[in-house]
């Protein structure tokens, strides 16, 4: 019975969400939303430090059931999702003041949190898929929140890509039903060695389809195009969580499929691994390159997300414990850093209305704290110590050298990692340089303090402190990730 407590973090925000429209008073709504999120985060952290639990909620038919469990991976994802959700909510209290339909925003904001926790806690494919679809549906309203023509178009695009991607994932499921012993996530894979004899090639095609499908949410080429369209139009907190968290759910689905359904042995060293590695590597390069060319700040950050999340996928597809560990570190480091970046961008938009990078000259003098956070997060994305990005890249690259996928692709991968880091420096640090060093002819008399209030600053400062903390004290995380890696390899 005690295991049913797992349901609480999944359904609590979902159940709370419909009441949002009733809370018309801004103050009360703020307090209640934060309270809900705080309770949620507390519950998740409590569960994360507790024992393993598993609960089957509903058995639809013989093979299909809705089951939740919290294993190591669930704990990590649920913890950082809820923590970042909470911080982004604090930020949005202030930010959303210049938007309409705030109730609706928070309704879907809460509901998507529940759904995301559902994905993290999902114990079998059916559950994960169900919540995966829900995730798309719940976050579409966040994207088209502004209800402008662009926003709606972007929302539709997002919806189309997501549904298509999830559909591809679903197809693989049917085959897994046949060739697997079960569809419960089992470390090491569920494929039945007897039944798959003679069909390996075919199953690998199916796997490739699933990777491309789930890769859609993670912004992997070829289904990445929704990301740069959807992020710039969404409100800043929404794009922050879209970019930092939702993409990570795509990664989670990929990890679950790869390591918990198909199993490492089935994929590693085969052609399909080369293909997906090549996809991930080319996405890394493409994302950075496009970001480097992009002038719209939020769109630049969106392209950056495409590139950075593919670092994670690169690590996942390398299929070595070290690289897997690096991938998870990158998940955490990027989630924190990218949220900090998007929230900084949001703060700048909120206070000055500037959306293009060339308008940001001297902004560091007006909003020093915001831009300091921006700088720290940028350093993490580039991979400069003492930030989290450095640690994750270190693990990714050292892991790459041990990979079973030969030497060529991993080495190309490392080269691309480095080129991409250089491009990242090119597209982020130039902003920083302009912001703080506007040049001698800069008109100081026009300057005014535009630092936003505590609602915006506190989450930013916490996030950037988090980036540095992950970089400075990663040992605990690394141990945790290594133990997960130990299970699945």
């Amino acid at each position, binding site marked *: 019975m005690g295991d049913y407590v797992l349901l609480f973090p999944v359904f609590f925000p979902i159940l709370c969400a419909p009441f949002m429209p009733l809370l018309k008073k801004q103050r009360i709504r703020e307090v209640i939303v934060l309270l809900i999120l705080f309770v949620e985060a507390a519950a998740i952290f409590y569960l994360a430090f507790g024992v393993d639990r598993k609960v089957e909620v509903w058995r639809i038919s013989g093979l299909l059931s809705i089951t939740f469990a919290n294993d190591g991976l669930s704990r990590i994802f649920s913890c950082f999702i809820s923590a970042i959700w909470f911080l982004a909510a604090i930020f949005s209290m202030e930010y959303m003041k210049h938007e309409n339909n705030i109730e609706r925003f928070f309704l879907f904001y809460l509901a998507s949190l529940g759904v995301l926790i559902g994905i993290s806690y999902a114990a079998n494919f059916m559950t994960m898929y169900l919540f995966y679809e829900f995730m798309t549906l719940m976050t579409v309203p966040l994207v088209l929140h502004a209800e402008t023509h662009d926003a709606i178009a972007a929302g539709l695009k997002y919806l*189309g890509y997501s549904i298509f991607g999830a559909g591809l994932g*679903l197809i693989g499921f049917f085959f897994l039903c*046949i060739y697997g012993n079960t569809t419960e996530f089992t470390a090491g894979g569920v494929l039945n060695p007897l039944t798959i004899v003679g069909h390996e090639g075919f199953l690998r095609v199916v796997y490739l389809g699933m990777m491309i499908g789930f890769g859609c949410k993670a912004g992997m080429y070829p*289904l990445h195009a929704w990301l740069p369209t959807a992020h710039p139009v969404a409100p800043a907190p929404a794009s922050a969580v879209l970019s930092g968290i939702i993409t990570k759910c795509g990664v989670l689905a990929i990890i679950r499929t790869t390591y918990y359904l198909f199993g490492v042995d089935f994929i590693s060293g085969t052609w399909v691994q080369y293909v997906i590695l090549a996809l991930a590597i080319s996405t890394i390069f*493409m994302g950075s390159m496009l970001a480097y060319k992009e002038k719209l700040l939020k769109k630049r950050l969106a392209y950056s997300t495409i590139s950075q999340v593919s670092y994670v996928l690169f690590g996942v597809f390398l299929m070595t414990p070290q690289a897997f560990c690096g991938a998870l570190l990158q998940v955490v480091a990027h989630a924190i850093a990218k949220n900090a970046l998007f929230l900084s961008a949001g703060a700048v938009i909120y206070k000055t209305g500037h959306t293009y990078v060339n308008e940001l000259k001297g902004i560091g003098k007006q909003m020093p704290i915001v831009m300091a956070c921006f700088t720290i997060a940028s350093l993490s994305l*580039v991979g400069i110590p003492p930030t989290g990005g*450095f640690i994750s890249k*270190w693990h990714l690259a050292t892991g790459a050298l041990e990979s079973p996928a030969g030497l060529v692709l991993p080495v190309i991968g490392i080269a691309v990692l480095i080129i991409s880091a250089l491009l990242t420096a090119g597209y982020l640090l130039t902003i920083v340089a302009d912001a703080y060093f506007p040049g001698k002819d800069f008109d100081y008399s026009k300057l005014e303090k535009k630092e936003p209030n505590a609602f915006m600053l506190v989450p930013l400062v916490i996030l950037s402190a988090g980036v540095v903390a992950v970089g400075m004290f990663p040992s605990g995380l690394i141990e945790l990730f290594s133990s997960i890696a130990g299970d699945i390899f």
Partner: protein
Amino acid sequence: MLGAVICYIIGRKNKTARNCTACFITVLEFAAAVFICTEGAVFRAESLFGLGLEFRSGGLRGILIVIAAFVWLMTTLFSNEYFKSYRNRNRYYFFMLLTLGATMGVFMSADFYTTLIFFEIMSFTSWVLVMHDETADAVYAGMTYLTVAIIGGLITLVGMFFLYHSAGTLNFEELSRFMASVPDRKEYYIYGIMVLVGFGAKAGAFPLHIWLPQAHPVAPAPASAILSCVLTKTGIFGVLALSTQVFFYDANWGMLILAIGTITMLLGAVLAVFSINLKRTLACSSLSQIGFILVGIGMQGLLGEHNSIASGGTILHIVNHSVIKMTLFLCAGAVYMNLHELNLNKIRGWGRDKPLLKVIFLWGLLGIGGIPLWGGYISKTLLHESIVEYIAHLTQYGHPTVLFNMIEWVFLISGGLTLAYMTKLFVAVFVEKNPYGEVKSHNAGPYMDNLSAAVLIVCAVLISVFGLMPHAVMDNIAYAARGFMNSPQPEHAVHYFAAVNLKGAVISVAIGAFVYFVIIRGFLMVSDEAGSRVYIDAWPEWANLEKRVYRPLILNVLPSIGKKAASAMNATVQVDRERIGRITDRGKKAVSAVDVSVYVDEWPKWLNIEKIVYRPVLLKILPVLGGWAAAVMNLSFEEVFKLLSRFAFRAVEIFSGLIENILLALLVGSVIAIRFFKSIFDYAMQLVLYFFFNYEDISYDGKRQFRKDAYFSRFSVDKHGEEQGARENLSISLMLFGVGVVLALIYLII
């Protein structure tokens, strides 16, 4: 113990950032702390940064730490006056102290991982120092610096990945043990070179020296002193660690470093001779001196077990260069503080009536020029000795020595050039009369306050101490560093002032005098009224020849040059003969009746690899190619998907108007889309399975038996509605549909 010190400093930083005076206390405290713990201590922080950090002190590290702390102390004291009229002083102090901490981390690191981490931190914090002035030049130089630092750092990182992967460790001691057991070092050379790139770039080694002559002149003087004296040494530390720990006694590696060092040495000296900007000359001089140090490191590898002289020379030159160059940069700072100008033509003669500054600058000149009785002489003698020693070795075994004879001459010529360009500076600033009339200081009152003067005096005294008591001071320093260098005791004590050693100095001095009087006075000073100066008259053909050689590339003179030369890089303006004539004419009008000769920056523009090669490649070619590739990738699938979605979402057209309706339609449409895609896929799969795969009956779970047409049953609703798979399909679709309807309802309600 050391970790505590470092943490303490980091803790102090935030406070000091807001308070300029507090930083003095910090630095003093820090210097004291460092002086206490120069003796062998080990500090490990296992959990930090994943792999753990390890610090050591003592030996070479102790020396470097003390130098760094000393330089920081002196420059901070000096900054007090220098920055009086500056903006953003808090930022300067904050980042200066951060850089201090990071530099200490580099010097004390006991494994490459630690080195790298602090190295990267240092690159970024010092970047702010370079850009501090925020002028266009400073920003330009800062971005160059940052780019070089990032590229270098990343390549080093990659090298370390490989090194770590092959050796399994990055600890200096374990690495040297590991390398001793490796017979075939080919691939390790590649890794080593990769690691070398980053450190070499920071040290200013050719061909990544480009940032140095740009960054040093534009940074505030105390910051340039730090950059030049300490930060380049962190690069040297990295190279040293590589050479003495990884590639220990390795002749091939030594040769590589020697080659780089020789080129850098000569290049820096030549650049310095051509420069007409006070700080740029000093920066190029740093470049050249770094070359000397690299030569020492290279010789050390070549000499193998007999390398005590080379290693002694290397470390002593590191020490000497730091102290001397700090003195010189601070002198330059004193000039800039008063005049806000660094162009030699503008500042000429400013120092004529300032004996203290004059003497101190002279001290620096003599020190760096390698004149006996001053510091630089000792280390240069040792380095020279080591080359001579190697030539002797080669002769002994009958190998040809031509190459090394050439290197010896390059060494001597560089030494001579050093003297030449320093004399040029000295004469220009402190001896000559300014033809344009007396230069006025910006500030009323004394040109330097007592504190700054004291700082300069201390530095100058140190130079003398090093030079006058070589055995007492220098031998001990060299001895202390021996442990790190893995070098044995020297076979015999070096007689610094023996005739043999003095000969090298005399040759250098002779070359220097020649270069100064012939080349600098002759070719690098141009008269703005033809034939008015003796130097030009004496070698008119030569001057013309020079001009003809550089004709399209030569730069020009005259009032305009003041502005132009402020940007050292941009100073070289490409002009043809006509334009020279025109500008000269204009110049004549501008300064009519004054007959003067001015310093010119004749360094040809096409030799500027940074502008010609690096920048275009980085900024133009790569982005264009890459961007093109990325754009193609980006659009390729999107177009396909647009086609697809137009087909799949036809349902949208049915509804129109309200957003809510569109959403509802979409939700329904999306469900249809899934069904649509899936059914297409199903049929395809059926065909594929049927024709290409030899499908057999499967026993599933041991419970159920699937028939041959199991696929049909699992995927098509029409034929076998009661099958398991069909129900799965239906249930999911229905569930999605339900969700869609509920969502749409919620939307409508809101």
